[in-house]
């Protein structure tokens, strides 16, 4: 399955819904979207990965790149993911310590709001 990207604003936080496979072929599209959002002034991002079927290191690199960009503006990039096979990749690479990973979009937004 190809990659499907949508985004909307909730409580001042930009939520990116990702569906499908994030790999070396499709990851550039996610990278472009994250860059566009940051360039558009959106520095509080939540990437919802609940419908992601596959994630490889290229996708991880795009997420890390997005995190660096928002942090440059004192922003944040949180993830929503409960799928064990996706979470395993974050654990292997040590990135569970880098990203805030939440069980739902509501939880991610609430956690971000509570830090403000």
């Amino acid at each position, binding site marked *: 399955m190809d990659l499907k990207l949508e985004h909307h604003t909730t409580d001042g936080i930009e939520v990116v819904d990702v569906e499908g496979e994030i*790999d070396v072929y499709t990851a550039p599209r996610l990278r472009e979207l994250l860059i566009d959002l940051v360039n558009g002034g959106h520095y509080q991002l939540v990437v919802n990965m609940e419908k992601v079927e596959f994630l*490889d290191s290229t996708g991880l690199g795009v997420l*890390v790149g997005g995190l660096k960009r928002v942090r440059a503006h004192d922003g944040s990039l949180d993830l929503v993911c409960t799928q064990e096979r996706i979470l395993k990749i974050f654990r292997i690479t*040590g990135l569970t310590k880098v990203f805030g990973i939440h069980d739902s979009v509501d939880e991610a937004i609430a956690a971000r709001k509570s830090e403000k």
Partner: protein
Amino acid sequence: MATVEMTFTPLPAHVRTARLVATAVARRSGVPEALLDEVRLAVGEACSRAVEVHQEYCPGEPVRVALTGARERFEVVVTNTAVGDDGMAWPPEPATGPDGQDPATLPAQLGLAVIAGLADDVQVSRNGDGLSIRMSWPAGTPPG
């Protein structure tokens, strides 16, 4: 002789095909269902890396993948022929996160870390002009 051999043009679009074929052959070779995701991801990482170095050094040459199910092991060998591939630090350094990292180099390091973390057994060797990544997993009795 490998159970299945394939070559593909070094384009990112074909990595997904390689993943799907590898997963299908792994299943047919008796690799437990619980390990198929690991096979799929590790093969994808190795093929992505091969595509990357081919595009840089030899875009006209195909990437080679050999899949073999025998002697209760399922083995995958991904071979590139990129003369300029100066090898890799193996085993890879653990990922240290985004601080101080160049985002452009991070995916390659992460890819190696993922392969090391997923494959049951990994060997990296120089093979003629390029490099081979050999990975294997346990395989039981193939389905009827």
